[in-house]
């Protein structure tokens, strides 16, 4: 994240390039020169795949589409119109990006299996189209007069230099993507898309950008590949093996980090090429078999790739135990000190101002089940509003409808005068509604601070500002000190809940939706979290909190709404609600009521 680290990475990239060039410069055998060039090209193709699939987690089996389009655009421009590859390759990049947009628009609606499968179909469809168009085998014409003008060189090393320049550019682009808001957002989407969109990230926008950049890199590599080999065929450009190789380089070397494809290509390409050269005549498919075995082996032994495995090994050797016991982490004085033992009367002036959030006749059904049934409800400015009810009463569904995960079937939702009824989660977040989840949706591989920074993107214009907001939010929940740089995966329940609270708090929302934030907390932890919630509320944030049990809530809230079977069965001050017979029946059952009446009688 830090600047020095970025500088270090730059040094590493240039050192790698210099050493590679040095070795390449003294290699005389043209076959090995070609192999060194191919390593670089396939590393670039791997980076192209990594840009989309590695960072966003949407696995593509169709990167041959961009590779092939880049190569064929350059070739056809050259052969048919005599356009030099120096222009042809950028042209190919443009075609690739356009294809990326056209492919992305419908395909991003799909998830998981469907996305992967349909990506496979694009290059295969193109393959047959190019065959049908009569481009079975197109050779680049030799330009003996001015070869350099047409990117043709006698010295193989020139191609290697070209490929190296392209790779270094792509590595630097990838490095910056990883460090930017763009990369962080993609990572958040990969780890937990609903949480990312609830934190104000627009998944479609970032995925599309990733697709476009990925397509551009893939097309550039395809163009370069064509000028190196001087001939294109549909199989070599659009074939399934190309798509597979793109994925294998990244997967083998390391997913989601730009060194990954470079490592993968550096190991696999020479291996497969050498075998192919030695045994290709006797054993024609050996290259594919090697790639296949490489995939199977890597999935079984190091599913994240070599880079991460090596890093893990290195880190394991000299790392302080990351999981410090939770109980030993004191609440910082800034927060504890701010909460006086005697509760100040809460600022009641807000209450007079009317509702911040208004639900009118909101309905949401799943098949025949009415999960939320005609709920009309106001949440007043400055309130702590408790929403309670037995399991399956529709509480979480109600939150999902408010924050846009689910569309309401009927009814309207207004927030501070704005209509939210049809908005997507990231837009709802932008309006100033933050939320947490019943099952904590952390980004487990990021640090606590990084988790919260994701939430802060909405409220900030720069990374520095986002980080400042995130630190402020962490400070408010008491996680600002040593925990800020711990990996979220190792936190305790309480810390996770506080981190999620901070993430929702970071963009300074006006309303917080807390979904069972208190569940599963032991007594002491519960008191701490209650204190923090009260403090946040006193600082001017309206809070709606779902809870299943009442006892913690009675002390916290100003108003209760009780849901049962999707219906609002009671709404009012805590004292009145807990005495309401319908509520008692919903909670304790009719038999309890009967018994209670008997005992009174």
């Amino acid at each position, binding site marked *: 994240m830090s600047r020095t680290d970025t500088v270090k990475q730059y040094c590493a990239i240039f050192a790698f390039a210099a050493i590679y060039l040095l070795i390449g410069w003294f290699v005389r055998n043209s076959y090995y020169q070609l192999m060194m060039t191919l390593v670089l090209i396939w590393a670039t193709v791997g980076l192209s795949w990594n840009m989309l699939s590695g960072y966003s987690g949407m696995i593509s089996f169709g990167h041959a589409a961009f590779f092939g389009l880049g190569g064929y655009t350059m070739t056809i421009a050259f052969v048919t119109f005599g356009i030099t590859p120096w222009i042809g390759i950028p042209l190919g990049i443009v075609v690739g990006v356009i294809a990326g947009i056209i492919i992305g628009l419908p395909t991003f609606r799909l998830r998981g*299996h*469907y996305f992967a499968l349909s990506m496979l*179909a694009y290059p*295969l469809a193109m393959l047959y189209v190019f065959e049908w168009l009569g481009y079975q085998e197109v050779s680049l014409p030799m330009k003996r007069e001015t070869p350099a003008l047409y990117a043709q060189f006698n010295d193989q090393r020139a191609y290697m230099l070209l490929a190296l320049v392209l790779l270094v550019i792509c590595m630097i682009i990838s490095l910056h993507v990883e460090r930017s808001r763009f990369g962080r957002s993609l990572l958040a989407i990969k780890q937990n898309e609903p949480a990312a969109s609830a934190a104000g990230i627009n998944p479609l926008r970032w995925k599309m950008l990733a697709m476009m950049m990925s397509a551009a890199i893939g097309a550039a590599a395809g163009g370069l590949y064509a000028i190196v080999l001087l001939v294109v065929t549909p199989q070599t450009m659009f074939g399934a093996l190309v798509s597979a190789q793109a*994925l294998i380089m990244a997967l083998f070397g390391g997913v989601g980090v730009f060194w990954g494809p470079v490592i993968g290509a550096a190991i696999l390409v020479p291996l497969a090429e050498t075998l192919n050269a030695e045994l290709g005549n006797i054993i024609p*498919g*050996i290259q*594919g078999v090697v790639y296949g075995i*490489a995939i199977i082996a890597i999935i079984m032994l190091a599913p994240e790739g070599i880079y991460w495995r090596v890093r893990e090994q290195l880190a394991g050797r000299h790392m302080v135990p990351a999981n410090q016991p939770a109980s030993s982490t004191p609440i910082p004085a800034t927060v504890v000190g701010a909460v006086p033992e005697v509760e100040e009367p809460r600022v009641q002036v807000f209450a007079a101002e009317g509702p911040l959030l208004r639900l009118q006749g909101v309905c949401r059904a799943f098949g025949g089940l009415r999960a939320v049934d005609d709920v009309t409800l106001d949440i007043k400015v400055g309130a702590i509003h408790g929403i309670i009810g037995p399991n399956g009463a529709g509480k979480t569904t109600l939150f999902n409808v408010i924050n846009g995960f689910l569309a309401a079937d009927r009814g309207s939702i207004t927030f501070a005068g704005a209509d939210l009824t049809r908005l997507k989660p990231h837009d709802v977040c932008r309006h100033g509604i933050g939320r947490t989840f019943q099952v904590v949706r952390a980004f487990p591989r990021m640090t606590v601070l990084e988790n919260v920074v994701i939430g802060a993107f909405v409220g900030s214009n720069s990374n520095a500002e986002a980080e400042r907001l995130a630190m402020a939010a962490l400070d408010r929940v008491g996680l600002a000190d040593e925990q800020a740089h711990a990996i979220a995966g190792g936190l305790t329940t309480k810390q996770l809940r506080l981190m999620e609270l901070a993430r929702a708090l970071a963009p300074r929302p006006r309303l917080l939706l807390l979904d069972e934030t208190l569940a599963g907390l032991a007594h002491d932890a519960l008191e701490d979290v209650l204190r923090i919630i009260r403090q946040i509320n006193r600082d001017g944030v309206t809070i709606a909190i779902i809870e299943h049990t009442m006892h913690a809530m009675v002390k916290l809230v100003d108003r209760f709404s009780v849901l049962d079977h999707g219906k609002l069965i009671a709404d009012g001050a805590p004292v009145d609600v807990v005495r309401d017979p319908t509520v008692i029946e919903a909670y304790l059952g009719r038999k309890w009521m009967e018994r209670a009446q008997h005992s009174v009688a």
Partner: protein
Amino acid sequence: MDELKWLVVDFFQAVIAGLLVGGTYGLMCVGLGIIFGVMRVVNFAQGDFMMLGMYITYYLVTGFGVLSFLGPFVGPVVGATLAGPVVFAIGWLLHRYLLARVTGARVISAEAEGHYTQIIMTLGVALVLANGGLILFGSTPLSVQTPMSRESWEIALMFFNQARTVAFVLAILFAIALYLFLTRSDLGKTLRAAADNPIAAAYVGIDVDRSHRIAFGLGVGITAIAGGLLASTQSFQPYIGFDFVIVMYAGVVLGGMGSILGAFWGGLTIGLAQQVSTLFLPYQLQNTAIFVIFLLIIFFRPQGMFGRVWERA
């Protein structure tokens, strides 16, 4: 007038060819459908198991001529049928030693990440099989030539290719047998239960991993039989799997992923669409037409046309 008549004849001829090919496609899709339905695994190697079925049939019938004593009519049919158990065994072992590591009850309820490792694993298997096929069988396109491959029965101006017709009838028979197995036998019902709700299946004492193993073997075996049936009218080489995996997924998606009956109808429809497309599309674009159909289905009706999909309780 005459022209119109021939146009109509051509059309119906294409429909018949489509139905005949489609029957085999349907069986092929059923194989894939079982695997997806039970294991929720996208198997990229399915096409390569079909390829294995084709080569096994070829070697039994033509190559080594083991089955030549059965004569040119029965031989290919028996060959295709025998490919089933052989590929079943290969699938069983493959699941036992590779796939079981990344699939099964533990992974099935996990979030998307678990599924990716499965998809990628099967991609690796596909590469090994296709290229291993190239090593073992060579790249020369082959086909299982029988006297029936070129003969047709003529009924009311329409030609029914004999080999295709026999393949069609057998495909239907195998599909029916499989349907009865899944709906009538205890083992079949156990597979469906494991597919429907693996957690509940474990609660009632079903060994979900074993169910997956059987389903995987059965699925690839069925597809291999379909491949063997197809081999007498379709020339093939080791890379044919990649094309057919899309054909199969098109069928399965069309039928509704997870619905086994739907997969058959889906495959049949794809065969029909492929043959009818030859009326107005050049031969090379047949497969492109299928890919486009596949994409259209996936965009507009991902739940499929035939299957009923229940929300998992």
